[in-house]
């Protein structure tokens, strides 16, 4: 009996071919970034930047190859056309001996034409499929996403460069989750990326990509963009971003005083008075002087007080400009005003939610800015005269 049982056991092992999902490193093509373009005939083109893990000695370029990650990984781009993203990806898979692997995909670049039609349709694939990472950074570009991903960059691959830039938070950075949140609660803002103009004597693709300007959406359709100064204003109101440089031109002086704003904290304080919706942007910031071209000595508390006042004024000017453009002209709620009202006045919000589009441009924005200059620097090049 025992022997028979053992025999059955051994035979049944033949039925267990097992390991359906086994994946070896040499079988996968690691996707580092994805770009999506709109083609003329209503189809889309998906471009993936693939890092092929391999030993450096095997070098040699293939297709649009660039050396990434210090040369340890070979990066190639492949494109496929199709009606949908997954359709196009299947065409890419046809061209590859290795299976596409999404675990390291951290950059998504969408072409402007595509997002002018709507971003929700494009983002859905990346959320619905469990494989792409939801921490991927999303960018919009006016150029072809394919061109950006096939740039011949040095040291890092194009997606790695963009990822690092987003991570540094000098301009906006927006992940897939942020896009979902913004789609749900207001209007979307996504950083635009573009190429650095190539140096003379270099090929057009021998350059690098960087984040420049911000795309502004109304609901899920892109309507325009704002420049970097206004982007910083938007980030200021959204309480995002790291340190900022400000060039202050004091009254009656010729030169500038440069300041680094180390800390800033912004609070949106909404208020509803009858039919009047009002929001106060309350900003507190601390700065340090890094350069002084003026004749102000910045030694006495009085001088600092005066400078602080002017600094606050200058910040307010910038915020005013931002609000003017985004709220009055583009009418896009990328500041999160709607959310602020919802948090403070849930009842009123529920009633007025549907008319928010009309209310939003009429919301009275008040600024309450307070700037402190904490440090005046390690020394001075000024001479007493």
């Amino acid at each position, binding site marked *: 009996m025992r022997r028979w049982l053992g025999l059955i056991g051994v035979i049944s092992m033949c039925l267990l071919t097992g390991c359906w999902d086994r994946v070896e490193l040499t079988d996968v093509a690691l996707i580092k970034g994805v770009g999506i373009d709109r083609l003329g005939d209503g189809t889309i083109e998906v471009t993936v930047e693939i890092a092929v893990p391999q030993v450096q000695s095997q070098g040699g370029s293939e297709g649009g190859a660039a050396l990434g990650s210090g040369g340890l990984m070979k990066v190639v781009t492949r494109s496929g056309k199709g009606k949908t993203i997954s359709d196009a990806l299947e065409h890419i898979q046809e061209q590859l001996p290795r299976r596409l692997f999404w675990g390291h995909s951290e950059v998504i670049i969408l072409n402007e034409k595509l997002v002018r039609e709507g971003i929700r349709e494009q983002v859905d694939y990346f959320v619905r499929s469990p494989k792409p990472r*939801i921490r991927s950074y999303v960018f919009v570009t006016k150029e072809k996403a394919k061109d950006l991903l096939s740039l011949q960059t040095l040291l890092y691959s194009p997606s790695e460069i963009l990822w690092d830039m987003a991570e540094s938070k000098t301009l906006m950075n927006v992940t897939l989750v942020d896009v*979902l949140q913004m789609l*749900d609660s207001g209007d979307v803002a996504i950083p635009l990326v573009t190429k650095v103009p190539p140096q003379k004597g270099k090929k057009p693709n021998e350059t690098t990509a960087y984040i420049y300007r911000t795309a502004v959406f109304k609901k899920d359709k892109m309507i325009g963009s704002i420049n970097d100064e206004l982007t910083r204003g938007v980030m200021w109101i959204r309480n995002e971003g790291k340190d900022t440089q400000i060039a202050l031109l004091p009254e009656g002086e010729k030169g500038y005083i440069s300041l680094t704003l180390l800390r800033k904290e912004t609070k949106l304080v909404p208020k509803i008075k009858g039919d009047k919706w009002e929001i106060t942007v309350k900003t507190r910031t601390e700065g340090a002087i890094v350069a002084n071209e003026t004749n102000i000595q910045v030694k006495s508390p009085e001088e600092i007080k005066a400078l602080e006042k002017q600094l606050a004024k200058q910040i307010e000017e910038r915020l005013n400009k931002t609000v003017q453009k985004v709220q009055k002209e583009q009418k896009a709620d990328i500041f999160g005003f709607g959310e602020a009202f919802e*948090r403070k006045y849930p009842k009123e919000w529920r009633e007025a939610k549907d008319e928010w589009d009309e209310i939003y441009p009429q919301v009275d924005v008040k600024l309450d800015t307070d700037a402190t200059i904490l440090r005046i620097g390690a020394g001075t090049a000024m001479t007493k005269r």
Partner: protein
Amino acid sequence: MLEHGRISALQMGMMLYSSIVTTAILYLPATTYNYAGRDLWLSPIPSAILSVIIVCLLYKLHDLYPRASIIQYSCSIVGRIGGKLIGAILLLFILSISNQGLWQYGEFVSSYFLPLTPQVVILGTISFASALAVCSGVEVMGRLSDLLTPLLLFMFLIILILLLPDIHVKNMLPILGNGVTPILKGSYFSNLWFCESLFITFFLPFLKNLEKGRKWGIVSVFLLLFTVMSMNLVALLVLGNATGSFNAPLMNAVQYINIADFLSHLEAIVMASWIAGAFIKMYVFYYVLALGTAQWFNLSDYRPLVFPIAFLSIVLAIWQIPDVTAFRVYMQTVNSVVGPLLFIIIPLFLLLIAFLRKNKQKEKQVEQQQ
């Protein structure tokens, strides 16, 4: 006596906790979010109150009928036919939710991790392991939960700590913005999980330290409440409005972990400890089913039933649930009503009758003495 092993009250509590929490943190946050919105983390509180009531009811019943489970004493309380009927209803319902638990496990593993592996293999492996655990008796099961529950708790702690940098507290405001109703709507869905604390009736008879049974039962419910609340909350604080966009928000929140560009892609580790929880869940269900069925038929041993039940549960898991949407609708309509209703009304009803009967008996005794 069907079972010779003895477990401690603490082990019972841990089994109860792990068996419920495993699936409760998976799809529940998304469902709760759709109804309770930003207050989803408050929704488990009413459910936990129900759960504590159930624990107390069953402990009291066990007091009146020591060393018996609900399947056994229901016969002595409402008579043979009525008792058997109640037992059958309970067992059939437990069988149905056990299939659903198994299916959820399989669905989750195959959609997130092993898409090419056949469903039968995923379900079969965990069922086989669980059935083996049940065959080894309640003592082995208790010790397994000794071993694995701390792992599960450790995982929750790690998730909480690693997600702290991505938390935005403003995501939970306004608290109670839409009043209490959304919270109650949300807890309507979590009731089923919390009401599974009925299972202590199958473990109480085998406790070494019975006097601590109620205490640990309630402690495990509170730990469960705390875990579900904190996991709901952390998913909300990380994902904000996007919580409802995902089926298993906690899993997506874990995917979001990125500490210093270095500690990321942690979902596999979480998955590994989560499977340990699923293992506890399945063996607790199989044990309850096998023991309950044996008690229902007055068999002398429950072990021969374990493998047939495990097999039945795999087959039913595949047959019963055609697809995800069907499962969701079933979960939100039938299960969420029937489950809590059965798990509360039946013990309450039994306890009432039992009290009346005891009183009558006492009256009779008094009469006889006179």
